[in-house]
């Protein structure tokens, strides 16, 4: 007759199976603790959490076993971006400051795998300071002049210099952040890998035709809710991914001036598709897009007369974003907004900028009705054709009210010409 198991061994077995529910092992007598530890190892149930439990008991025998077996804590690394190939991405950085050292060092864990295109603001006179250890190409005024001609290079000053990076890139995805941003941390304290998140946003479908109330249905742990039409569940390709900012949010100068102490501390754990026909302010501070789908539609067209080197002194991205959204809606492509977050640092004085940006603020009032009603012809099936059509409408409908719009329309047409020229020269080399 087999000896039945002892009560003690049954108890230890039971403890082993319920380890995840135990928060404190110190009440256990030493010999039982050791037995449990050995069985835990045997059963392969030693996790980080369980190891901490055993360590906390301070039991000599257990501690010496841990040392003898060389059991070590796992350091939590920034998880490598596994969902995207290195050769699919270009990271485009507009350098509005000459010293990029701390910026690059902060972003190293996230950027180091990828190729970077750094475009120096043609108006910046100092030499760029860039640390070692990156795979990058730097473009300056002379490069811009060479590629586009010095008369057209006016398009690429200030924040708009990044569009030069978009122009010459040959990768499928572009991710771009302002040079005053550093990686953010999520609510668990982990570093936010914006490349992985933007890639995820761009590679999973968007759902612009019907709103899903629990946001992105393709995220882990989510799905389409009851009542979401089945025929719309395959979604459409996502062309643009708009990220957000912690600390200094992208407010305009009047808002920032009136609330100088306001900081964005709310981490909203969501990605959502901005519905078709809904207009939105696309911020260039933290943005990614599928260059093959909509590259030509991100346009350096609108320059304020007093445009400056602070974000709230420009609306180039807002104009570009309004155009891109109309074009995406027309082409049946999606635009997502939400994660990932970056951490945006302090810069400049909002009150000083108020005067300059007021012009930009007024401008938005005029263009909203235009963007609400503009329709592109069915024949425009590619992004570049859409831009040309939009330029026509801008010239006709807005060109009369302000020469700035007439200039923007011309710049849009110029841009498409440039895009096509650069494309064909890349293909022939």
């Amino acid at each position, binding site marked *: 007759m087999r000896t039945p198991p002892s009560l003690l061994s049954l108890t230890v077995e039971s403890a082993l199976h319920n380890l995840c529910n135990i928060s404190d092992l110190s009440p256990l007598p030493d010999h039982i603790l050791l037995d449990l530890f050995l069985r835990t190892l045997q059963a392969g149930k030693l996790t980080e959490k369980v190891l901490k439990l055993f360590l906390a008991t301070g039991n000599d025998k257990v501690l010496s076993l841990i040392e003898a077996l060389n059991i070590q804590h796992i350091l939590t690394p920034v998880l490598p971006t596994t969902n995207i190939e290195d050769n699919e991405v270009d990271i485009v950085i507009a350098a509005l400051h000459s010293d990029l050292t701390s910026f690059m060092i902060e972003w190293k864990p996230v950027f180091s795998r990828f190729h970077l295109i750094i475009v120096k603001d043609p108006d910046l006179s100092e030499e760029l300071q860039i640390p070692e250890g990156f795979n990058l190409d730097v473009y300056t005024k002379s490069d811009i002049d060479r590629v586009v001609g010095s008369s057209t290079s006016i398009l690429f000053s200030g924040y708009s210099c990044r569009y030069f990076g978009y122009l010459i890139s040959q990768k499928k995805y572009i991710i771009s952040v302002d040079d005053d941003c550093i990686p953010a941390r999520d609510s668990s304290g982990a570093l936010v890998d914006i490349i992985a998140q933007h890639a995820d946003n761009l590679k999973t479908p968007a759902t612009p035709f019907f709103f899903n109330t629990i946001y992105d249905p393709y995220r882990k*742990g989510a799905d389409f809710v*009851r009542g*979401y039409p089945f025929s719309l569940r395959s979604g459409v390709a996502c062309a643009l991914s708009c990220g957000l900012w912690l600390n200094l949010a992208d*407010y*305009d100068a009047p808002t920032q001036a009136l609330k100088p102490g306001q900081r964005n501390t709310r*981490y*909203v754990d969501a990605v959502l598709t901005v519905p078709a026909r809904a207009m939105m*302010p696309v911020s260039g501070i933290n943005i990614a897009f599928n260059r093959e789908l909509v590259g030509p539609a991100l346009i350096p067209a609108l320059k304020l007369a007093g445009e400056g080197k602070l974000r709230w002194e420009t609306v180039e991205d807002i104009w570009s974003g309004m155009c891109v959204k109309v074009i995406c809606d027309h082409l049946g492509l999606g635009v997502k907004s939400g994660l990932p977050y970056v951490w945006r640092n302090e810069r400049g004085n909002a009150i000083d900028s108020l005067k300059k940006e007021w012009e930009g603020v007024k401008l*938005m009032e005029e263009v*909203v009705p235009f963007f609400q009603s503009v329709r592109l012809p069915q024949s425009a099936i590619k992004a570049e054709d859409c831009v040309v059509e939009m330029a026509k409408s801008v010239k006709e409908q807005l060109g009369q009210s302000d020469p700035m719009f007439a200039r923007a329309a011309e710049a849009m047409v110029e841009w498409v010409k440039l895009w096509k020229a650069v494309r064909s020269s890349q293909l022939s080399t």
Partner: protein
Amino acid sequence: MAAIEASSHAPTPLLKDELDIVIPTIRNLDFLEMWRPFFEPYHLIIVQDGDPSKIIKVPDGFDYELYNRNDINRILGPKASCISFKDSACRCFGYMVSKKKYIFTIDDDCFVAKDPSGRSINALEQHIKNLLCPSTPHFFNTLYDPFREGADFVRGYPFSLREGAKTAVSHGLWLNIPDYDAPTQLVKPLERNTRYVDAVLTIPKGTLFPMCGMNLAFDRELIGPAMYFGLMGDGQPIGRYDDMWAGWCIKVICDHLGLGVKTGLPYIWHSKASNPFVNLKKEYKGIFWQEEIIPFFQSAVLPKDCTSVQNCYLELSKQVKEKLAKVDPYFDKLADAMVTWIEAWDELNSGGASDKLPNGKA
């Protein structure tokens, strides 16, 4: 910038004499015990679904009125035909008989949830905040509700649109058992919604959404007559589309009248997973009909002279009869029921100035 800055720092008003809580139930109201600290100041309207001879026990200390099928028949007479039998859709009777400005409706298997810091969420308070602050349906704000504390309109948001629109509906969400349809439930029976998304946002004009009636609040004066939950349950070919139907109707009407619909916070804890096989039977026809219904609502246009909710709703019912009756004769019945509902609403709510007033710009 956000015009209602001051009120976002002041405590949220209780509105205890201006808000009714409508609860449909067939089992019991034990769940109210957990909600007591938040619900006790309010008047409850309990709509008893199912067998009217069963006594529903309401926990002590709550001020309530209770209606069962017999009451509904007595009060509405022949018009009672528009109120569903044996389905939680009957809750809309509660909206009709309420005399208050605001309604909060909740299912009897929904409990108090906790936010990530471990604090119990006062769902009602958040709904009130949502309803009292403007919505932004005409332009999407990437930082979500600009009227929330710590948020604002982002750069590029037109100043002329920063006053926002009146909020007609506040659609809350749920943690734990997700509100999935039967096919999704069958494929993912163990999935739980554990993601707390700390946002309230306005659903843009022109966009439809699936409105869940589990955790919902609305301004009865602004949109009440459009909150009809349709013909479901006993004797009907379809179930679990009551809130969906109301959601599509109210969104079209809100878009037409320039009112806003918010979604997001607050979360409640949804405890009971319904039987997916039972659900599949109820939803089956709806899954196919949906494909016709959605394009109908997406393209529905209301004439400019429809300036009251009732007129908008009656116009919608005409269009349902014209365009959806060919999908199934059910829609013919439903269109008639929509008209009956408005007649009943106006009868019960006449005497006040609330019924035929225009509700804002078309």
